[in-house]
């Protein structure tokens, strides 16, 4: 048995370690999905109670920022998937740059989101005394808008931290990307962040724009 530098206790076999890291991440992702499920349930209940208000309020979000961000995040998922494929194809340099692209795209997502938040605040779309829309439904919609996008942004930041750690660790040792399962676990997590956004995008931006 060749000792690999990526082997950690209690494992004595790199392949098993890799499988375990993947399995652990999958279980964690299920947990994460349930975290968001709580939010989706709340959103679903209120949208069911206030369908008209939710449609009206949802039309106030900025679809340009939202759509650009969807594109950015989906591209970043592509690049991290490429990074994994390239690492397995023994092209570690290229894989490293793909990972870097993911980091840049993820950061871009947060920057765009920041601009969108600033615009939302300027338009008084934060529920409170200054809130621009009347009635109860819209305030509930925007409560969920802020919490959902906020929690999602926190997850994006977490994912970026994991990617950054991977980039630093593999800078001088690119083989790190194909061994031990870290790259795969990070990619799985990043895909989850992407998938959550794919659900948030129609809930927050497209509802209320479907009738023209």
């Amino acid at each position, binding site marked *: 048995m060749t000792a690999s530098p990526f082997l950690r206790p209690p494992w004595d076999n790199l392949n098993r370690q890799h499988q375990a890291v993947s399995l652990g991440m999958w279980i964690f992702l299920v947990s994460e999905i349930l975290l968001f499920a709580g939010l989706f349930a709340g959103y679903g209940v*209120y949208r069911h*109670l*206030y*369908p*008209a*208000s939710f449609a009206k309020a949802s039309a106030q979000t900025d679809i340009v920022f939202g759509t650009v961000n969807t594109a950015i995040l989906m591209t970043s998922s592509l690049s991290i998937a490429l990074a994994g494929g390239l690492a397995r194809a023994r092209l570690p340099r290229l894989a490293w740059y793909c990972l870097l692209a993911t980091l840049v795209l993820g950061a871009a997502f947060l920057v765009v989101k920041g601009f969108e938040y600033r615009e939302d605040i300027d338009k008084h779309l934060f529920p409170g005394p200054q809130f621009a829309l*009347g*009635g*109860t*439904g819209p305030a509930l919609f925007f409560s969920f808008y802020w919490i959902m996008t906020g929690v999602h942004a926190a997850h994006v930041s977490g994912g970026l931290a994991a990617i950054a750690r991977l980039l630093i660790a593999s800078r001088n040792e690119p083989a790190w990307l194909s061994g031990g399962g870290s790259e795969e676990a990070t990619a799985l997590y990043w895909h989850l962040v992407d998938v959550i956004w794919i659900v948030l995008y129609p809930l927050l931006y497209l509802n209320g724009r479907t009738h023209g």
Partner: protein
Amino acid sequence: MTGMRLSLPEASGNARLVDTAFFTVFGIAAVIFVALFILLVVFSIRYRRGTRARRGPLPSLLRREIEIGWTTATTFVAIFIFWWFVGGFTLPPRAAPNQLEIHVVAKQWMWKAEHPDGAREIDALHLPVNTPIRLVMTSEDVIHSFFVPAFRLKQDVLPARSEVLAFTPTRIGDFHLFCAEFCGTQHSRMTGDIVVMTQPDYAGWVRRQPHGDNLVRQGEALFAKFGCGACHAPESQVHAPKLAGLYGTRVTLADGRRLTADDAYLRNAILHPRDGTVAGYAPIMPDYAGVAGPADIDALIAYLKSQSGLKSQSGLKSQSSPKSQSSPKSQSSPQADR
């Protein structure tokens, strides 16, 4: 230390049913527990270390049969209790006619009650015996819970919602009223007395009370005070729905939904009118949330009911009010946005 209490009076029609269920389930539980206890003791003595009892393995067929046997038996007992006591109770008989409707408002930390002809009381509730009662309850602040152990009844009282509790007191006497949902600092002091009297005594008690305005007249005054008539009066120039005869009819909203103009609808229509604008009208009515309190809304609804030829105390047949049960879903206020 006053005397130890061992039994609880059964003071409502519901109490007898609950006690029957309670003591039947207690009997079933006791049989199971005693059987297990005897087995434990017998096995502990017979099979303690060092006795000469037989200890060979069991035939595996027997093991499987025992296992299947008690799984089936347990399932059967569980389904039996469910079918007998939940199936029978939870979908209750129709609301009795001629209910006495009393409005209860809970707030930190008191119970306020208002009788049909305007008599009011705090932390006490006088009731005539053998008369169907319908409590319409709401809260001004947090969640409280109306709990009368002698009636075996409990119902959470939520803000911005009407919860209905229907029952018939069957025994004369004084009983405890507790708030059973933790509601803040003086939760344990949010108690009251339920005084069940004979029907003539109740009538006498009502007569002796200083008569405030009754709900309908209060509602009429509030209707004027809030200036509702400026738009809703028949002679108004503003294009707004007319309210006479509205209560209990079907309403079509601007977004196409059709619903019944009941308590819950009216409550929401006053508090948050733009969540459910009526078809054919402009969404111009301001919110009265924060302007009209829960007691005000009750009064306004009573007034609107009276304008539809209904008396507040007559009880409404449009909603079945499950005995000893929470109100059906249509009572919740946010429904009105549909």
